[in-house]
């Protein structure tokens, strides 16, 4: 009897302890960290893996504008949005401002090049915005709207109080647009001719500048409607090209240079011409001083579509180096997108007596990315060089002072 009571009592105590333990674990116990078992025997060094810190997740809403990296390495990517046009504005205050237009929407953004702050300046949508040019004061932006040949030209006037544009159509399709002061310079095609024109963006007055006996030229605009402009037919490696100066009266003066695959760039009176010899597969650049038709050659090869000239210093040009040994079909293969360039940017400086070429940056080595730039231009004070990467249409900057 006593034995039975003892056994029952022990059993009850054990069950009670188990119940108590269960209650304690369920309602009062706290989880402990498990010991690290990544290297239980200590092989492979003494480093121990650390567990991830347990940070509380707090939902936040931020109203701060995105900040672009405008410091650091000289070569910087400014946007992740695809860009169809941009311009560094003429500085009026202490900050330098860059405006750019987003592809497809035409929305305009500004980047403060001192602080990196980015803000939207216009939320007005331009349907199928394919190309944009800005005035130097940022008051106007002119768009090509439409991805096909049935497109139109839209003139946008920026508002100083709201993030919207006032728009009106030009009435004709403008090609090869460029804004100088308050004038937008362009040409329109009529039959087999290209008509060079200017339109005052403030007054709306239009003027015919010249008529060209070709329908698809490239125009290297001068500094204003009365300046000299240079024109040439678009390049192809199988067709000869020529360069002409168009004077203020519209007359054409042929420059003493020609060649297959011809394309050109300019800095004031200096015109650089690159041509290809399809048989020899050679690509080379010649510079001509149009004051006296002095020719400078033996410089190597530069790609005119990737050149920009200084707005301050005559004869200072930035270009991308080309390959003197051009594969058959170049430059057409580049224009079709079959060939992608890894840009090496150089600076050329011409005077009456000397020529200097300085390599600035190998973009592939510097950024680790393929950069095939186009639409190059410099800021008004020559401290920055800008271009759009053809691979993704992002906007890039190279700090020339750094």
């Amino acid at each position: 009897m006593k034995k039975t009571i003892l056994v029952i009592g022990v059993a009850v105590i054990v069950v009670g302890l188990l119940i108590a333990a269960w209650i304690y674990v369920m309602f009062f116990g706290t989880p402990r960290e498990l010991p690290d078992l990544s290297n239980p025997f200590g092989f492979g060094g003494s480093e121990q893996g650390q567990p991830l810190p347990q940070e509380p997740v707090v939902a936040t809403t931020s109203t701060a504008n995105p900040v672009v990296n405008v410091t650091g390495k000289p070569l910087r990517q400014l946007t992740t949005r695809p860009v169809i046009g941009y311009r560094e504005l003429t500085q009026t205050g202490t900050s330098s401002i860059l405006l750019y237009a987003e592809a497809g929407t035409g929305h305009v953004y500004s980047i403060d090049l001192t602080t990196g702050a980015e803000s939207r300046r216009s939320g007005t949508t331009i349907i199928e915005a394919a190309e944009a040019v800005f005035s130097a004061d940022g008051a106007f932006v002119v768009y090509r709207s439409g991805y096909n040949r049935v497109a139109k030209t839209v003139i946008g006037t920026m508002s100083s109080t709201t993030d919207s544009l006032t728009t009106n159509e030009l009435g004709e399709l403008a090609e090869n647009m460029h804004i100088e002061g308050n004038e937008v310079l362009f040409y329109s095609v009529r039959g087999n001719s290209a008509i060079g024109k200017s339109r005052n963006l403030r007054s709306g007055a239009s003027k015919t500048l010249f008529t060209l006996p070709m329908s698809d030229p490239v125009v290297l605009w001068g500094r204003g409607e009365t300046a000299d402009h240079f024109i040439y037919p678009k390049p192809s490696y199988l067709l000869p090209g020529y360069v002409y100066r168009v004077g203020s009266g519209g007359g054409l003066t042929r420059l003493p240079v020609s060649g297959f695959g011809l394309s050109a760039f300019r800095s004031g009176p200096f015109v650089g011409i690159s041509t290809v010899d399809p048989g020899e597969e050679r690509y080379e650049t010649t510079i001509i001083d149009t004051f006296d038709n002095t020719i400078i050659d033996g410089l190597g090869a530069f790609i005119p579509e990737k050149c920009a000239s200084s707005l301050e210093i005559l004869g200072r040009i930035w270009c991308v180096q080309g390959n003197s040994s051009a594969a058959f079909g170049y430059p057409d293969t580049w224009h079709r997108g079959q060939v992608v360039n890894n840009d090496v940017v150089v600076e050329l400086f011409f005077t009456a007596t000397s020529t200097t070429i300085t390599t600035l940056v190998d973009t592939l080595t510097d950024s680790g990315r393929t950069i095939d730039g186009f639409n190059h231009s410099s800021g008004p004070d020559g401290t920055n060089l800008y271009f759009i990467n053809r691979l993704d249409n992002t906007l890039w900057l190279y700090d020339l002072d750094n």
Partner: protein
Amino acid sequence: MLRVFLCLCLVVLSTPLYAAAQVTGSLIGSGPSLDLSPRYPEPNQLVTVSLNDYANNAGGGTIRWFVDGQELPESTNQRQISIVSGPNGKNQLVRARVTTQDGLALNVEHTITPYYLDLIIEPQTRVPVHYTGRALPSVESQVNVSAILSAPLSPNQLIYSWRINDTVLYSGPVLGQNRAVFTMPQGSAIVSVSVSSGERLLASRSIEIFNTEPIVHFYATNPLYGVSRLPVHERLILLGSSATVRAEPYYLDLATYNAPDFLEWTVAGGVSGTRTSNPYDLTVTRSGIGNVGFHVRNLTQVLQGTQGGFAVE
């Protein structure tokens, strides 16, 4: 009557004959002339001037050369000299003074007036809107060509004579016809133009242009951002489930591009395609690996066509 006729013959036969160059002095046989190579030089171009005097055979006599009145002593007794033409539109007088062994002196002159005469070739074949190069001609495609002369004269004051290979265009010289349109033949085309002012031939130029076979490249399109500038290289890797691709048949004659007799997209494997309002666009939807093909052609001018394709992954 017979006496009058004989007198007339004597007058005609004793009149000095003028060939391409002016010649003074008595002639023996046909007159000498100066031949240029190139015949119509451009400004500041090296020109070879040759004395064509084989009938009289000045060999044994002396030949002296003068350019704008200045003698070239180093070229004495040479039948050929090389000079550099002057600036655009500036006359340059070249004279050869031939003295035969009999003492007969002949002056042969030629005035060189160099001009640029450029031919701007603009084939009317398809290239994308974003293409920054020039279109090339293909067989049976239309080609526009413009002539630009560097003389200070309006094209409306000049007479143009056009020829494509051996075919004369517009039935002959036409006043103000500084542009020509022709259909590209097979092989190549030698485009020639001569420009005259009144009776005087100012310049002549020829250029040979070659056919290019149309080729198709495919570009991804985005309804917001437009057409990519870089083509699909053999395979399209879809990050999403679908993408729209545009076929661009480079150098296809515009008439064929705008109204093709035959245009077909083919899909095979784990892909399907949906046509859009633009027959050159296809929306590709992937459920596996597949291939997309494209073919466009003019069934009358069968060389006006191209085909290609790409893989989809």
